[in-house]
């Protein structure tokens, strides 16, 4: 009850005309930032941060966090329309979102993505509102072994769900690990695989690789296939929103499961990217239509989007209560807090009530405002596909190049992006999957770091991964998920044959 009155007080702080304007400006800026690949929420917030130093802290964080919500919404748009993930956590959205757009169901896919984002965020905000102190303590239980267990679970839930040959999946994943290893090794402080090149110092940035692999690769394929986007026939009617909503109610179980995964990943804080991959992988396994994932299943859009947005929102909790950022954007916001003279930590909720509850109230209002804004724009977003390829392709190329440049302000990265574009094209021609490569590139070095930290702490003993109930449970769960196809096939065989071949053949 005390929380509820505090929250109402928070709404009082937010509901001033000045703050409402900031919310709308923030959301719209955020959507634009999210759409531009490479710019990203973290960069966008960092660029705008100094402008907010003259505002009252509560207004400043409301605007900046709305940019963050907007970017979370916006990341889905280019993933679905052009197969270009604007943010790392949008990669899994492309797997089913883009095939849907190609089938002329862009409006449906966008509506599903936005609604799921909203649902995920809303669940996370409710968790933050009522369980903040409790949940914050949970994050403290995560040491290196626990982090590795979570990353391992992300890999396990994703491995083996590919359609292609297992050897090709493995090869793609190993290439991803190799690319992730380039640059500074944080555990020994030595450079790896840079071959004396100064350009390789910073390693391969995930965003540049993804823009190239997906965006440029897609354009190359489209050029080959006849210079036109598929899916031009997308319905341009706002009614599509209502129709999709009716369909979405069928996936309530997936939504809730994904929101739970997202909240957990955001709070621990492992981040939105593993959350989206893990949620997609698990949804594919649990769904009756799992075998058709990757060909344009709406459930394959719901799962990653719900989880990513729930994680992105929940990531603010460890930032506020512990001072550990759950995402790169949260890291920049954290810097902002310190600059405004607010010390994040367990006492922030006690000492800065106006600020904290104003922020939480703005999460409710910002997300509702964001949903309304992006949903009304669905027909316009879908209409982009009607622009002739000869006009839109150069625009996309320029946006990709600008995006790749922005990540590190380095011209060489544009060439790296083009290189990845060719790799993406070749991969698809040879029927290799991009997803395992991307997953290994984004999580590979984090998983390696956690693993080695855990090994340092335990003097090299693997028992660290079964040292307590929490880490042991996650590791055991990972192993079960990894061998699930074999286990379920075995189970079916024991029940009496017939269906086993079909399941094993999936």
């Amino acid at each position, binding site marked *: 009850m005390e929380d509820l009155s505090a929250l109402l007080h928070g709404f009082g702080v937010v509901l001033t005309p000045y703050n409402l304007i900031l919310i709308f400006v923030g959301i719209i800026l955020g959507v634009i930032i999210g759409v531009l690949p490479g710019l990203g929420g973290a960069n966008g917030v960092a660029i705008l941060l100094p402008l907010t130093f003259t505002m009252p802290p509560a207004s400043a964080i409301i605007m900046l966090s709305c940019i963050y919500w907007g970017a979370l919404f916006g990341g889905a748009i280019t993933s679905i329309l052009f197969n270009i993930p604007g943010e790392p956590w949008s990669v899994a959205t492309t797997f089913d979102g883009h095939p849907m757009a190609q089938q002329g169901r862009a409006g449906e896919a966008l509506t599903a993505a936005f609604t799921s984002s909203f649902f995920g965020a809303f669940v996370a905000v409710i968790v933050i509102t009522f369980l903040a102190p409790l949940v914050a303590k949970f994050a403290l239980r995560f040491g*290196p072994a626990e982090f590795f267990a979570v990353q391992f679970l992300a890999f396990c839930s994703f491995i083996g769900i590919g359609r292609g040959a297992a050897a090709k999946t493995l090869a793609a994943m190993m290439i991803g690990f190799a690319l992730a290893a380039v640059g500074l090794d944080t555990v020994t402080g030595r450079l790896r695989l840079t071959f004396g090149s100064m350009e390789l110092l910073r390693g391969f940035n995930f965003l540049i690789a993804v823009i190239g692999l997906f965006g440029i690769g897609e354009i190359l394929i489209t050029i080959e296939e006849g210079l036109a986007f598929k899916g031009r026939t997308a319905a341009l009617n706002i009614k599509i929103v209502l129709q999709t909503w009716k369909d979405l109610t069928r996936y309530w179980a997936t939504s809730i499961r994904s929101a739970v995964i997202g909240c957990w990943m955001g709070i621990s804080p492992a981040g939105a990217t593993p959350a989206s991959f893990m949620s997609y992988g698990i949804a594919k396994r649990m769904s009756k239509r799992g075998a058709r994932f990757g060909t344009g299943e709406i459930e394959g859009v719901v799962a990653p989007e719900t989880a990513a947005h729930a994680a992105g929102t929940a990531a603010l909790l460890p930032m506020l209560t512990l001072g550990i950022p759950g995402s790169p954007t949260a890291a*920049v916001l954290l810097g902002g807090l310190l600059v405004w*003279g607010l010390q994040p930590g367990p006492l922030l909720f006690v000492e800065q009530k106006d600020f904290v509850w104003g922020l939480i109230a703005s999460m409710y209002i910002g997300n509702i405002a964001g949903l309304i804004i992006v949903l009304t724009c669905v027909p316009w977003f879908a209409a982009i596909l009607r622009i002739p390829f000869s006009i839109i392709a150069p625009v996309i190329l320029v946006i990709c190049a600008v995006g790749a440049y922005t990540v590190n302000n380095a011209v060489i990265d544009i060439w790296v992006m083009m290189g990845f574009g060719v790799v993406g094209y070749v991969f698809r021609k040879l029927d290799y999957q991009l997803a395992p490569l991307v997953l290994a590139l984004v999580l590979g070095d984090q998983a390696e770091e956690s693993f080695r930290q855990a090994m340092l702490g335990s003097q090299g003993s693997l028992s660290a991964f079964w040292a307590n109930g929490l880490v042991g449970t996650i590791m055991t769960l990972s192993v079960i998920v990894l061998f699930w196809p074999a286990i379920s096939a075995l189970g079916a065989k024991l029940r009496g044959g017939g269906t086993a071949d079909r399941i094993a053949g999936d």
Partner: protein
Amino acid sequence: MRNLERRALILVATAAASVGMAAEVNAQAWKPTKAVEFIIPAGTGGGADQMARLIQGIVAKNNLMAQPMVPVNKAGGAGAEGFLDVKQDRGNPHKIVITLSNLFTTPLATGVPFNWKDLTPVAMLALDQFVLWVNAETPYQTARQYLDAVKAAPANQFKMGGTGSKQEDQIITVAIEKAAGVKFTYIPYAGGGAVATQLVGKHVDSSVNNPIEAVAHWKSGALRPLCVFDAQRIPYKEKITATQSWNDIPTCKEAGVNMDYVMLRGIFMSPGVTNEQSAFYVQLFQKVRETADWKSFMETGAYNTTFMSGSDYRKWVEDAEKMHRDLMKDAGFLAN
């Protein structure tokens, strides 16, 4: 020879200013003619990043410069990317870089070819402190008690968490080991905030976090400071907890661990810029330091607010580099 010339020029400049022709000198003095790139050789959200963005905010808010200041993160290779960028941009007066200890540690540990002598020193803004922290639930009340416990335990049993590898936190750890005759297992993490939380969650036994990274946990009663690695105590006397202020934390020397270490937060420019150009930035940062925003930031982070420029600064940096080289050589951290 060059140094002498430079000093002579500065003398002339000061003389001219003190004669009372300030207005005329100002009219002729160099000013940025386009946006100034502010390189941060570290990731977003860290200590250097926060400080750079605060400076950008202060400069914009108080109109201290006609041109905008644009912070750019170049964190690759433990900051080598940022320093190389400044080094290679010879004579560009529109580029400055904020440093952390990686100015010294990165070239020594990785062999990437740059050195502070490749850059033009502008000014020291502040010095960042390091404090030895333990979890408040442990019985250790002083640094001596803690280190005695580490000594009594088998080698490597106690875990020290820190930011990065072969950087300041690990160098301090090695220096403690040498001074106290103990052995830690050092576990590197990506950022200072994560280290402080790992200590609260008891995944490590101690840390050498900067004040700003751990103060919230001290305030809430989760962490306990044992000693500060500076030659003097931190001057801020305002109470942080019910009973203690920063000033109540003894120095490690007082506690019987004979070592000190502070981290440079300073500004450098590209090589080959003129004295007038670097003088502009010295003045700019003096103005920044006068603002209330800067002062309150210094107090929040319990910084040592020493300011230096010119030959004092050069001398300080030279000594700091030598100290890093010696410490890292003893620890076996040198690349070559």
